[in-house]
């Protein structure tokens, strides 16, 4: 019960498939003189279980195509899961209608990767920020709305007198602050951030990360932070979930993961970070390429590139087991103590 109360968002056995076969007529094919219907799917997420605890910053890392953004969008309800459930504060939210989900939308907000695409170019900043406040508080007076917008603009370091400007008049870093302000405008408790700093320069990244950490402290926020940049994770995350091809490889407290990564993929990923060190990088070389999520490998999704894979890995899908460092890892080799 205690664990239930602590976790804000629960993801249970989540699956998400996307059809890539086009519409009905495109799916019809002639095979051996017969008309058959064929469908191909991208298996973006395959049976992920994840809890986001209240007050933490849970980082999801992985390479492109591993399904990390799909998780973010499914949690927000922007995509419907193919199977499995998502609960918020103990209530299931994945099957709610648009009207029923409204109260949750107010508590959950999202920050997108590209601040050039996520702000409406035809709206002034004030309009952009007022809209969510009005929408979620229809009874609020004009002064209340304006005060709220002022407050969030100030809290992200944007001068409230710039409200009449359009988004193209701002730099990338300022735009990302405005997106953060828009998310904060309805006083959410949970924020999903999908690569919020990947499009920004190093010196601007630091500004935005600082802002997000300040907001977390002052507003008691919970983050689900999606990124491919591991050095950011080391700094920002409470816990880290490493994903590969739609499956969770390892889930561990940040310190434990960076000190002793257990899963072979986590180890390779960590060793590939370009560090400020002299000499040649000593990274772990992975064989082969990432397989496609269209034809998933049998067994462990990583076995084709894993240096420790054996016959069992190609047959049986590993389940998450608890490690001594307080994390969880899905690997037969770790379980059997083979390395």
């Amino acid at each position: 019960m205690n664990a239930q109360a602590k976790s804000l968002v629960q993801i249970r056995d989540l699956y998400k498939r996307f059809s890539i076969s086009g519409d009905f007529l495109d799916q019809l094919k002639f095979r051996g003189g017969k008309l058959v219907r064929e469908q191909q799917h991208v298996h973006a997420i395959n049976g992920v279980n994840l809890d986001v605890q209240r007050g933490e910053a849970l980082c999801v890392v992985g390479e492109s195509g591993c399904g990390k953004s799909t998780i973010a969008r499914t949690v927000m309800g922007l995509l419907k899961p193919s199977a499995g459930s998502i609960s918020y504060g103990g209530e299931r939210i994945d099957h709610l209608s648009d009207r029923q989900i409204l109260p949750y939308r107010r508590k959950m907000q999202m920050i997108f990767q590209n601040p050039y695409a996520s702000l409406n170019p035809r709206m002034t900043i004030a309009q952009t920020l007022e809209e969510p406040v009005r929408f979620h508080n229809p009874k609020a007076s004009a002064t209340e709305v304006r005060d709220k917008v002022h407050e969030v603009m100030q809290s992200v370091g944007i001068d409230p007198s710039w409200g009449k400007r359009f988004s193209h008049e701002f730099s990338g870093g300022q735009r990302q602050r405005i997106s953060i302000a828009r998310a904060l405008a309805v006083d959410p408790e949970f924020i999903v951030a999908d690569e919020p700093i990947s499009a920004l320069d190093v010196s601007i990244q630091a500004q935005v990360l600082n802002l997000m950490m300040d907001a977390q402290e002052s507003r008691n926020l919970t983050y689900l932070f999606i990124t491919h940049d591991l050095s950011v994770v080391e700094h920002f995350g409470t816990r880290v979930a490493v994903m590969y091809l739609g499956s969770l490889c390892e889930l561990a407290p940040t310190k434990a993961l960076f000190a002793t990564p257990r899963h072979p993929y986590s180890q390779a990923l960590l060793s590939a970070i370009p560090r400020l060190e002299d000499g040649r990088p000593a990274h772990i070389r992975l064989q082969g390429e990432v397989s496609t999520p269209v034809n998933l490998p049998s067994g462990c999704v990583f076995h084709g590139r894993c240096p420790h894979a054996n016959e069992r890995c190609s047959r049986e899908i590993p389940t998450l087991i608890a490690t001594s460092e307080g994390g969880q890892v899905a690997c037969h080799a770790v379980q059997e103590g083979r390395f």
Partner: protein
Amino acid sequence: MALLEVNNLEVRFGLRSGEVTALRDINFSLERGERLGVVGESGAGKSVLGFSILNLLSKPGYIAGGEILFEGQNLAAMSPKQLRSIRGNRISMIFQDPMMTLNPVLTIGQQMVECLLAHRRISRTDARRIAVQKLKQVQIPSPETRIDQYPHELSGGMRQRIVIAIGLLMDPDIIIADEPTTALDVTIQAEIMDLMLDLCERNSVALMLITHDLGIVSQMTRQAMVMYAGRIIEQGPTKEIINDAQHPYTQGLMNALPQMALPGQRLNQIRGSMPPLQNIPTGCAFNPRCDYVMDACRHELPGFTRSGGCRVACHMVAQMKLEEEAAARALEVN
């Protein structure tokens, strides 16, 4: 004589709203087999620099002054025909996005053979043989079949390796790589970097690596220069710049990296952002963002000061050096 020597290069863009200077006072040289990193944030002019070396600037950009000496010949003053014999042949370039660089309607082989036939008088069969051999060098599995595939049939990392193979086709003296791994995942990035290091070392090719990632520069290069608003502000051995940066901007850039802060603590940020080229502040371009700004910074363009093996364009560093020298002289007198 250095392999490549750039003297007082100035690049401008003639815009409708007026002339804009994108690069000024660029001076550096590149020796055979040397690896030079060019670091800066977006808008610093690092990509423009890469383009202007091969005179690939498209209108409205043009080289307004200075010279680019490649083995003593000035590339900035060459005719298009002369330039064509150097581009891709003696100096080749690798761009950020391999999907944009490769022609989607030609097979890998067609693109490689085309390049070889343009520069060398050899038969088609020989050209194909060389192409397969280069693909082998960049560790493409089963190159004989891959060579007849189209770019869309390959993964991102494989495509970038093909681009590198094309870059190496003519055994160039210099490779200019403009953010070669920015579009790739970290594990693939590490592989590509390894490969490039290896190839450059083995064939003693000079590498000019343009990137925003200080980690990559520290691992890949021996010399580095940091750019800000169209100027070089610090240049010297990479080790010195990474371990003991002198310019406040370089220091700020290093300290802003999450690796440099304790987990959970605030990062050291540089306030503000890079100025647009149309309105670069007078004096030192960095002065509105600098924590150590002095009066001179606002009016006077800083010249270069020697500091260890580096050259730094900063009034504060210059003043500190003067004071150090004065103190040393005072000691000697006593």
